[in-house]
């Protein structure tokens, strides 16, 4: 055992800072190579900018610029400027220089959620070029514009403020302007970034977005001034609790010992869509005393409570207020414009929830037009208005789309069919921090399936109508096509004039085909 002893003597245990963890494992956040890292950097900054504007009722003006600082060494700069709410000067160092720090740890829909993206970009820039992150920011009505240069102390997970300045905000500008210098492969990521910007513009038709890069300029002017309702901060839904959540909520009561609420009060206060009646009915069903004090609940009680809450099927659906879906009209409009399809339909589902998080699934189906026929439907995925471009194969939407029996909806593969899915949630269950594939959470899977099926039924109606109209057309064409031959044959056989038969056929077509066809059209339209 002596060798083992020696080895064991060397075995050390230690803790790691989150910054160091992600520095070591940057692939997890999508920074696996210079191509991917540049794309990811642009995404993180653009998404922060959109969150900083539209969530606060500001129509977004976003300017994105990529410059090649040293093309030989793959050194590029990324600059993103917005007209958002800015970052207070005292928070700015942490917001850009500390992993797991941010303003988005709330129960409401936003693009960013992990408090990680921008920091990963800063980390990546720092480790590849050693350059600090440059920030210029001002909150609304701020008298000054603040500028920072920030690095991250990786082992401590703390910001290092390299420099800090302030200047008079004479023009009352507000927003954030971030610039990073990093190792990035522009030629490799160019198309993907452009595609990302294009799809972002599609899902945010109320934004002005300008994108400039070597050899590329994309300018998207807003087509509407209507913003989706900004999300409100919400409460968890009872359907998706776990024991930990219950414990956290209970410990949130300040005077728990002195003034403990009853179980019923607890439910009504802490959960979304739960009123007194609902709470009472549930507790009766679940076998709990509504008047028990919550500080008396043991872990076994909590386990039972959590399980019963999950099992109970009579909860009201969660409120949609923390969510900000695009809505069927805007979605249809965007999809129609980008895909130039013959037929587009969109479905925005009612809110649902998983694990305490409300979510809404939106789906659009586009058929025909400029869409190329393919063996599997083209899939365009969005989550909280973020276009998802990578890892389609691992996404729950792809799974659902592939499991649909399209034949049932009169779609014969290969077909010119595109499926657009948009998952809005206070927490989208991404499979990785790279935010590209959504995990197959059963509740979401079901909603996507229902949404697609609802849209597919509309598509089927459209295709049926088209088919019926086609039947009439085919009949008309077939009968009239042979009219001349039939009339001539009858004329010869009966030794009469061909014209009388031609006219008789014309009358027959008029009464037996065209009028009936009109009836079919009308019937289809009434549906």
């Amino acid at each position, binding site marked *: 055992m002596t060798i083992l002893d020696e080895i064991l003597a060397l075995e050390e245990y230690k803790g790691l800072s989150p910054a160091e963890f992600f520095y070591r494992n940057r692939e997890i956040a999508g920074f696996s190579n210079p191509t991917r890292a540049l794309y990811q950097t642009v995404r993180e900054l653009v998404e922060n900018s959109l969150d900083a504007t539209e969530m606060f009722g500001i129509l977004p003006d976003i300017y994105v610029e990529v410059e090649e600082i040293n093309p030989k060494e793959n050194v590029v700069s990324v600059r993103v400027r917005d007209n958002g709410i800015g970052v207070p000067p005292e928070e700015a160092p942490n917001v850009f220089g500390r992993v797991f720090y941010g303003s988005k740890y709330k129960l409401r829909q936003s693009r960013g959620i992990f408090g990680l993206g921008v920091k990963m970009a800063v980390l990546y820039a720092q480790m590849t070029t050693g350059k600090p992150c440059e920030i210029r920011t001002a909150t609304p009505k701020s008298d000054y514009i603040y500028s920072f240069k920030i690095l991250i102390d990786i082992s401590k997970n703390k910001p290092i403020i390299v420099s800090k300045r302030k200047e008079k905000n004479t023009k009352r500008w507000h927003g954030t302007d971030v610039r990073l210098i990093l190792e990035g492969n522009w030629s490799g990521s160019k198309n993907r970034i452009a595609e990302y910007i294009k799809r972002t513009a599609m899902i945010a038709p109320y934004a002005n977005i300008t994108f400039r890069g070597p050899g590329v300029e994309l300018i998207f002017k807003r087509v509407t001034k209507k913003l989706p309702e900004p999300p409100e901060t919400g409460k968890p839904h009872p359907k998706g609790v776990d024991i930990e959540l219950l414990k956290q909520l209970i410990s949130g009561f300040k005077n728990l010992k002195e003034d403990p609420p009853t179980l019923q009060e607890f439910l009504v206060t802490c959960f979304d869509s739960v009123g007194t009646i609902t709470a009472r009915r549930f507790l009766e069903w679940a076998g709990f005393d509504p008047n028990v004090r919550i500080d008396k609940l043991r872990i076994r009680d909590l386990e039972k409570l959590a399980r019963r809450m999950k099992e109970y099927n009579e909860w009201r659906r969660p409120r949609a207020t923390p969510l900000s879906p695009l809505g069927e009209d805007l979605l249809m409009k965007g999809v129609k414009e980008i895909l130039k399809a013959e037929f587009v339909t969109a479905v925005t589902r009612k809110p649902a929830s998983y694990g305490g998080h409300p979510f809404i699934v939106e789906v659009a189906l586009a058929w025909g037009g400029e869409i190329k026929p393919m063996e599997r439907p083209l899939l365009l995925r969005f989550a909280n208005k973020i276009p998802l471009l990578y890892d389609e194969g691992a996404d729950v939407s792809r799974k659902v789309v592939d499991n649909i029996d399209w034949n049932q909806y009169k779609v014969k593969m290969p077909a010119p069919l595109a499926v657009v899915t948009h998952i809005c949630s206070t927490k989208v269950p991404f499979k990785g921090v790279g935010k590209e594939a959504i995990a197959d959470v059963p509740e979401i899977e079901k909603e996507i399936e229902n949404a697609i099926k609802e849209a597919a039924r509309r598509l089927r109606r459209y295709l049926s109508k088209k088919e019926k109209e*086609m*039947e009439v*057309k*085919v*009949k008309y*064409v*077939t*009968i*009239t*096509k*042979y009219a*001349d*031959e*039939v009339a*001539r*044959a*009858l004329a*010869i*056989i*009966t030794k*009469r004039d061909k014209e*009388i*038969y031609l006219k*008789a*056929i014309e*009358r*027959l077509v008029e*009464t*037996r*085909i065209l009028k009936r066809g009109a009836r079919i059209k009308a019937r289809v339209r009434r549906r």
Partner: protein
Amino acid sequence: MPLSDEEIIARLEELGKRVAEQLLKGIPPYLEIPVRTLKNTIWDEKNKILRLGPAKARREYLDVKSAKKFMQTLLMLSLIIMARREKDYPTIRDLYYMGKHTITYIDVYGRKRQEETWDDQRESNSVIEDIEVATGILREEMGIMHDAKGKIVGNIVVRSKGYLIDCSKMGSGAYAIPPNPDRLEIVKVEADYVLVIEKDAIFERLNEEEFWKRENCLLVTGKGQPDRSTRRMVRRLWEEFGLPVYVLTDADPYGWYIYSVYRSGSISLSYESEKLACPEARFIGVTTSDIKRYNIPRNYIIAATDRDLKRATELMKYPWFKSDAWQYELKLFLKKKEKIEIEALSGHGFKFLSYTYIPEKIEKKLWII
């Protein structure tokens, strides 16, 4: 008693006039055509022939699926009536060409397109058959000619267009049976039987060595699947002159099916059996049991294909193959899975077929029926 041209024209016109009246009255026009499928075919046990059953199909102009057939039927009807009125004798191929037009039309997508009234002769032939069954008049009676494949040789003299043709004086050649044998006058027949041979090649060899002269018979070939005129010629020789008919084919389901056609008619043309079938035709070979009986060398044996086996299984179900002799032969075939050609008999020398096999089979009544 054949129908006169006037009667024929009237009955053909009748079919078209009904459609014309429907049309002028504003009724969606249709034709009623007896169905020519296996399902609507009936075996006449007494006469040992196939007949058409009672089922009829409505061919409607306003039905997308039958519109083209409707048009084709009327088109063909008009062509036949025209020819009859002008006392012309077109072949079925003439009718095909005469009715083959290109229709130009605008399709459902607004594109200019072209379509032929029919694309191949199968389509025009099919409507001719429809008109035959719908009017009860055979095509020969309508004056329609068709390609005649049959040849005859032997001690028979016929008269055509006033010329006497002696089929025993054709040298290496033979007399081609004309398209409508009913218009041939059979002046003289001096023969004991008719030998119908599946294959032209065998026919020519037997003719070359003047088998018919030696055996005092008539040689006929329809070159494989026989056409109507060959069948009609054989039928006339059996019916009018009481000659027994022997059929010689390869030992395979295809050859046996040819025998079946001479004897009872083809399923698709069952309505004409009464004038074309030879219910007493005798099959003298080649049979599967001949392989053993005549000791056919192994390397002359050909392995049966899946298609052969399938066909034999079908043949077993035909009512006229229900005899013990035929069932035995077909089962043997299905078991052995072996077939041979007539030429396989040449393993015993080139003269074996004509000097031994055929005379022996006839003399010893080794034929089956």
